């Protein structure tokens, strides 16, 4: 038996009923397109979230304070212990720790000659520059003396430089006004934050001791440890957190780390659940599509009773007729699947273009999509094909 021959017969019979075929395929088209779009967007979203999680540094892990009072001693108010440069130095000696970064945050109104803007301020120590591999474009980073001596110095990022200074102008040594206080620009740096999460206004770095003094917040609000071995990041983080808890002799609290693995597992669970949910909706649409195909194939068998009778009269076996109709319905649904994939790829391209999610179509999913729709055609084609193959040739020929 020649499969190609049967495929040609199937294609021509689909072509002969163009409108009906397209309508029949609709369920399959929608089902397949939905599945593929969902999977593509899901993968894109997952990738984006993971990227975001590790946006700054893959080797870094945050250490934060957790209030854990003893039974019966819960207070309404509690205070987070103060951290200082000294604590950072202690943590830097914990085995496996490559560097420790302590920062705080503020925002301030910056004025320079005619320009003004609200900028994000990150308070840092001298260790920040090497630990985060900050690229200094002009001038210098902070030294220990800047933090210890409460030096009113700032570094501006390249965006802020563009905003406040002309290209030919040398910003180093200029005095800018921040919330009414004069600050001296000592350097220009390239912000390590990915562009899409960065304010276009620009940012600036200030010694964290100065931030603490000026804005009244803690000297170290965010403490992160950078491990020399990225594989052992959780371990190193935990060790550092425990060291800090012990050093601070904490009674009603402790230092702990964010658990990435747990977070990631939770995220994966959510995405999987969502995919499953939408997948089952798509599955129902494919089921309905399949029933539509079965229905049309049954109509087609009835319409073509005489053709079937004639084919049998000239020597077609039952198996041959069965195969012909199975191939026809599988071809119908595969075509539907291919159109669905086409639509999905257009949608994926549009999503990538007009939203931050980089939806990615997996070539494997295309293959699965086509084979799955062919399978639907075969499953829902069995009943009609069987009906066709069982017709007796004379009864079929006599059919009016």
């Amino acid at each position, binding site marked *: *038996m*020649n499969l190609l*021959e049967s495929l040609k017969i199937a294609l*021509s019979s689909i072509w*002969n009923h163009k409108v009906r075929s397209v309508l029949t395929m609709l369920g399959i088209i929608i089902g397949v397109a939905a599945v593929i779009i969902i999977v593509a967007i899901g993968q894109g979203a997952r990738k984006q979230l993971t990227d975001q999680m590790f946006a700054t540094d893959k080797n870094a892990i945050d250490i934060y304070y957790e209030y854990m009072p003893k039974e019966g001693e819960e207070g309404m108010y509690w205070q987070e212990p103060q951290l200082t440069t000294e604590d950072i130095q202690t943590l830097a000696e914990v085995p496996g720790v490559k560097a420790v970064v302590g920062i705080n945050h503020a925002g301030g109104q910056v004025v320079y000659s005619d320009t003004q803007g609200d900028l994000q301020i990150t308070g840092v120590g001298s260790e920040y520059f090497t630990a985060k591999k900050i690229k200094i474009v002009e001038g210098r980073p902070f030294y220990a003396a800047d933090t210890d001596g409460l030096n009113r110095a700032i570094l501006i990022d390249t965006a802020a430089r563009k905003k406040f200074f002309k290209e030919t102008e040398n910003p180093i040594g200029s005095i800018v006004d921040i919330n009414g206080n004069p600050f001296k620009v000592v350097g220009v740096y390239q912000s390590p934050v990915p562009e899409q999460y960065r304010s276009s206004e620009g940012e600036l770095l200030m010694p964290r001791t100065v931030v603490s003094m000026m804005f009244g917040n803690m000297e170290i609000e965010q403490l992160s440890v950078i491990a020399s071995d990225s594989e052992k990041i959780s371990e190193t983080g935990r060790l550092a957190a425990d060291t800090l808890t012990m050093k601070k002799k904490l009674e009603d609290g402790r230092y702990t780390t964010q658990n990435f693995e747990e977070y990631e597992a939770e995220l994966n669970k959510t995405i999987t659940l969502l995919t499953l949910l939408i997948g089952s909706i798509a599955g129902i649409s494919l089921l309905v599509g399949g029933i539509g195909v079965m229905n049309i194939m049954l109509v087609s068998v009835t319409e073509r009773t*005489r*053709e079937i*009778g*004639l*084919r*049998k*009269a*000239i*020597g*077609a*076996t*039952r*198996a*041959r007729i069965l195969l012909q109709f199975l191939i026809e319905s599988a071809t119908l649904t595969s075509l539907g699947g291919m159109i669905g994939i086409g639509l999905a790829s257009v949608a994926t391209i549009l999503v990538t273009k007009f939203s931050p999610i980089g939806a990615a179509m997996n070539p494997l999913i295309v293959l699965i999509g086509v084979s799955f729709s062919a399978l639907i055609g075969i499953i829902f084609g069995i009943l009609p094909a069987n009906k066709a193959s069982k017709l*007796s*040739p*004379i009864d079929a*020929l006599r059919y009016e």
Partner: protein
Amino acid sequence: MIKLTNITKIYGKGDLEVPVLHGIDLTVEDGEFIAIMGPSGSGKSTLMNIIGFLDYPTAGTFELNGEPIGSAKERVLARLRNEHIGFVFQQFFMFPRDNAIKNVASPLIYAGVSKRERTERAKQLLDKVGLGDRMKHLPSELSGGQKQRVAIARALVNNPSILLADEPTGALDSKTSEQIMELFTQLNAEGKTVILVTHEEEIAAYANRIITIKDGLIIDDRRER
């Protein structure tokens, strides 16, 4: 050679039983030209269908070239139809969307013949039945006589030894019927066994053996010339 012994055929079951053939004994030698006549409803088509492996007899034995067919499987019957029998119907029966060449070539698909050879042989036969200039036409673009020629070409394409025709001229005028009968005569002269059913004496006159059926029994069997 075809040998039928005590063939009976009953349609339906139980109270709805319709006995049609009541014990037909018939031997057809290779190269014969037989006309089957008889009143309407006498069972002529039923007999033709049994001879052409389109239907099973209810009882009796059937031998083709000395081989008993018995209760052969559907797959075997399909092959026998394809290889040994060429069927021509009163209503022509064409694949309406296929042109003359494809219609004629269709049995060869099931014989597993390659596309090129199929087209080749279909063209040859269309030439033979005098339709060399209508090869690419669709059935709807052909006259009744032309359609019947296409059907005859199709019946011949797999080179069967037996040609069965159930009222092949039933839907044609007398002039066209004559041409079709001359074609059958020529094919018989070339060695094909031809069995046809007809109601018309003039058509039966082309045959060299005329069998008359009435109420499912052969009541007359005479050889001409």
